[in-house]
């Protein structure tokens, strides 16, 4: 509330306050009894509009970037009709940027097929609930200095509680289809999501330990400031934070079913996993929820490791905080697309082995590392260097030892090709 009061009082630059002023100006127009409701509705509509559009442009960015990574152009034809902007040209292609809207129209007009034996109610509820649950997680992300939809004291707990509800919808989708392949795929997807939920939470816990709070606002605020005027105090620039961020990235990739962990709906091997019996707009809703989940997890990663809405260098502080958040979000999504275009898909046994034998132990060791880091908070001078060396050793040592132990007898792989 204090940040909000400060913002309205005008001690911050105008751009920083602009969204709040806009909202308040609109709320003032309405009669007093409805103001609190409109206040919250505007927040919801803003999230839906911004992240709906973000989703649309993520799909086109993914298709174009993947195209470039695979030496093709990607969608570049869909434009706007002749009569819209410039009347003398036959068609504007606009680099294919309106592809997502064409896709939406296609999904809406496709026939919606429900299998005859399906559990009609659950089959309908699954796509609706998956979008609802994946949108719930946006409520606690600090998009800017003053832009937190709901300020909760236990925001991280809420985030994971809301995120874990999406597992139910995977099950509902697989079971309601009454198709044994859908059900088996749903069980596989659940096994993956459940195994990677533990490392995801364990990689976040060190940040909670060091920041001393579960509130996303406090965690983002705690990462303000710069060492020597250039190195930001982001968690990712500490040994435990760097290790935690890498573990978080792997777990987030698996949690949102992205390549190289996209086994649940491996297009080239399975049909579409637990979504086999879905078509048209319901399928699009699942697709949408997946991207919302990815965006929310990226937002969480930015908030707890990459300094949230903080500017990277002091002299760029005039840029409003929400712009920094969105820039980092675009960067994270771009990274995920790059990973998808680069890495190969894992096998299911490799996937679960990676989670339980490698990532969970490393995350636990990293928790110890964070405990060490917060115990040695008052070491200065030469001791500071010792602190860094010990902390880095706790990260690198187990990584090398564990990796060597697990790889014994497995690597290097030999590939045998058919010869003519």
């Amino acid at each position: 509330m204090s940040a909000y009061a400060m913002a309205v009082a005008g001690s911050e630059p105008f751009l920083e306050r602009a969204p709040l002023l806009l909202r308040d100006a609109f709320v003032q127009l309405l009669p007093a009894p409805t103001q609190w409701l409109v206040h919250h509705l505007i927040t919801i509509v803003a999230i839906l509009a911004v992240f709906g559009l973000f989703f649309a442009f993520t799909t086109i960015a993914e298709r174009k970037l993947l195209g470039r990574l695979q030496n093709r152009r990607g969608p570049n034809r869909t434009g706007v009709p002749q009569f819209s902007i410039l009347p003398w040209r036959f068609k504007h292609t606009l680099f294919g940027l309106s592809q997502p809207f064409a896709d939406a129209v296609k999904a809406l007009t496709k026939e919606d097929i429900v299998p005859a034996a399906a559990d009609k109610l659950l089959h309908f509820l699954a796509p609706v609930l998956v979008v609802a649950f994946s949108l719930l997680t946006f409520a606690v992300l600090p998009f800017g200095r003053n832009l937190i939809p709901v300020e909760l004291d236990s925001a991280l707990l809420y985030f994971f509680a809301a995120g874990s509800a999406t597992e139910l919808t995977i099950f509902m989708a697989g079971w309601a289809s009454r198709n044994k392949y859908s059900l088996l795929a749903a069980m596989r997807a659940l096994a993956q999501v459940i195994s990677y939920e533990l490392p995801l939470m364990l990689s976040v816990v060190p940040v909670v330990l060091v920041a001393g709070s579960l509130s996303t606002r406090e965690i983002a605020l705690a990462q303000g400031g710069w060492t020597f005027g250039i190195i930001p105090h982001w968690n990712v620039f500490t040994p435990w934070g760097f290790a935690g961020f890498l573990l978080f990235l792997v777990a987030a990739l698996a949690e949102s079913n992205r390549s190289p962990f996209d086994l649940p709906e491996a297009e080239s091997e399975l049909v579409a996993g637990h979504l086999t019996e879905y078509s048209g707009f319901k399928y699009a809703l699942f697709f949408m929820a997946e991207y919302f989940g990815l965006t929310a997890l990226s937002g969480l990663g930015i908030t707890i490791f990459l300094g949230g809405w903080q500017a990277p260098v002091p002299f760029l502080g005039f840029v409003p905080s929400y712009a920094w958040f969105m820039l980092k979000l675009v960067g994270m999504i771009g990274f995920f697309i790059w990973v998808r275009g680069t890495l190969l898909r894992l096998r299911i046994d490799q996937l679960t082995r990676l989670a339980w034998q490698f990532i969970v132990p490393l995350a636990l060791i990293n928790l110890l590392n964070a405990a060490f880091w917060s115990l040695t908070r008052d070491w200065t001078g030469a001791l500071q260097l010792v602190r860094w060396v010990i902390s880095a050793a706790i990260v690198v040592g187990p990584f090398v030892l564990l990796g060597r132990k697990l790889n014994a007898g497995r690597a290097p792989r030999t590939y045998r090709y058919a010869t003519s």
Partner: protein
Amino acid sequence: MTLALILLSVLILGSAIVALSLRNLIHSALLLVACWAGIAAFYLWAGAEFVAFAQGLVYVGAISMVVLFAVLLTRQGTASEPLGFASWQRFILALVAGGGVAGILVGAVLGTPLTVTTPGPVPVLTVKQIGAQLMGPHVVALLVVGILLTVSLLGAVVLAAEENVKSPEDEV
């Protein structure tokens, strides 16, 4: 405030009754999840934010999954055996017993003069306070819960694991 409580109660009790009387186990489990979510909403209504999210994480996220996996692993997904005389008899006896307990409890609740009649403001208990309490006076209980969870995890794995499993790599 009271209206919200009554609505929540109807939601919780209604979903619980329907869930436990359905014949399809998957539907029961999913409806019970709604009931648990309603209970989490009740905690939120009472101001216990941390407990509400813990309830959501543990019940909606974890226990529901264990239940659904158990239903599928015991192949009860589409079970529909005919209801025999014995089950009706037991149902009526259970209803009588449950009704008796309900009558006694409701009578006791309504008949007891409770000292707190005017509800104060919602008490604020921050996560920091809960953490200090857990690590301070209740630290032994916390350790015991940790040991209990570890032991029950191992126990569940040992109980549910199949004997003589062959991993695919052994067969090569």
